[in-house]
């Protein structure tokens, strides 16, 4: 059970962390660097916790696993201990054994997974595009025209990645068209990224404006104080130009 008072701490921390990180937009400063370093520490532990929970659920608590006496699941746990030879100069080579197991399994999974989901399915979806039939050439733009544009786009964009021959003649024209399709894709990705990041930014502004605790504390009370901290640190830095940080 989490004490509700911790929400007040979260609000205070959130305001200072948000303003300190955004101060990076003006200039890199000790406050933004401090929060970034704190974030790295938390991120490392969070990543480990996420992997640990997945492993425990998979190997110990899952059906017919170690908890139910299926001792075969103890083998990977024992092998994983060999990772600690990473710190030994003499026995470093033993560290390669668990690494090679993971590398082999992942390579096998990549071959099977990529062939199925990223290669065959993409070709299959393209081959199934409607070109003939009822309603395919009706309306504007007709679905048939869209299909032709997609097929041309895929073939020309793929030709752009073809480096066996020089990109001249017909191949040159094809790669040029392919480049335009790729740029349109990057443009769409760019638009999507901007939208997603703006949505995060709006989320932070809403956090600063809306977060409250017990009707007496509002997060935005602390915004001017956090800004003053940033200005104070900037002035202090300016007074000590020789200091590295």
């Amino acid at each position, binding site marked *: 059970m989490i004490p509700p008072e911790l929400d007040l701490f979260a609000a205070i921390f959130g305001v200072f962390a948000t303003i300190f990180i955004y101060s990076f937009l003006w200039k890199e400063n000790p406050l933004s660097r401090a929060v970034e370093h704190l*974030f790295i520490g938390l991120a490392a532990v969070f990543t480990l916790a996420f992997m640990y929970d997945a492993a425990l659920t998979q*190997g110990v608590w899952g059906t017919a696993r170690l908890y139910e006496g299926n001792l*075969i699941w103890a083998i990977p746990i024992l092998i994983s201990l060999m990772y600690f030879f990473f710190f030994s100069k003499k026995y470093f080579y033993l560290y390669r054994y668990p690494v*090679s197991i993971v590398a082999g399994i992942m390579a*096998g999974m990549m*071959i099977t997974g*990529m062939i199925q989901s990223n290669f065959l399915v993409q070709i299959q979806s393209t081959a199934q595009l409607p070109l003939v039939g009822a309603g395919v050439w009706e309306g504007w733009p007709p679905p048939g025209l869209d299909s032709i544009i997609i097929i041309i786009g895929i073939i020309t964009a793929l030709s752009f990645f073809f480096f066996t021959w020089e990109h001249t003649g017909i191949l040159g024209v094809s790669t040029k068209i392919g480049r335009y399709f790729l740029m349109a894709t990057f443009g769409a990705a760019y*638009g999507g990224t901007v939208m997603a990041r703006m949505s995060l930014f709006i989320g932070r502004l809403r956090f600063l404006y809306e977060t409250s605790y017990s009707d007496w504390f509002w997060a935005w009370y602390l915004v001017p104080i956090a800004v003053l901290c940033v200005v104070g640190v900037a002035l202090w830095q300016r007074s000590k130009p020789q200091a590295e940080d």
Partner: protein
Amino acid sequence: MSLVIKRYIPLVITFLMGIIMVIATYFFAPGTPARDATALLTGSVDILVVMAGVIGLIVLIRHHSVNISKRGRFWKYSIFTIIGVILYLIIGLYGVATHPQHLMYASDLFAWVYNNIYVSMDMTIFSLLAFFIASAAYRAFRLRSLEASILLIVGALMLLGRAPVGGAIWEGLPTIATWLLNVPNTAGNRAITIGIAIGAILLAIRQLMGIERGYLGPEQQ
């Protein structure tokens, strides 16, 4: 002999593991013992990478501790990383001790820190990109090439078409954005995905054949 143990056996293990995965997937039906073995292997990876994560965390702590002790570059900020790791790890270990299934991420306090502290910083850091991407667009615009223009025009149309203000300016903008997303974007994305697949498969084959050995670490050790 030494070279066999140090380098060749790990390469053989990599090859065998990869081949078992491929053969079991393509030549054995689901439910057969051989196919079930692949579930054991993939489950083993989940367990093995945890210890790799532990090693990564130890290396991170060691790097920043050495930086502090040697008064290295930005050593004062290393203190924040160490504090973050230790505090969050203590919370995580407390969660492991108290959670009914001894899970860490699923424990109450750990999840609270994630939702209220970590996400707060994560969202802010990632939203910084909204500002930097604007300067990136300006640099692309200065290139004055047809490719850069296509990128910017499609990006701008996507932005206007997806935002509510775009539909308010002209009702055709959302339709154009949807068409751009469904047609030219699909074509380019499919080509990129097929290219990635071919590249990844070749990389995996090179790894299984022992041509790509970077994952084994330095040669001399």
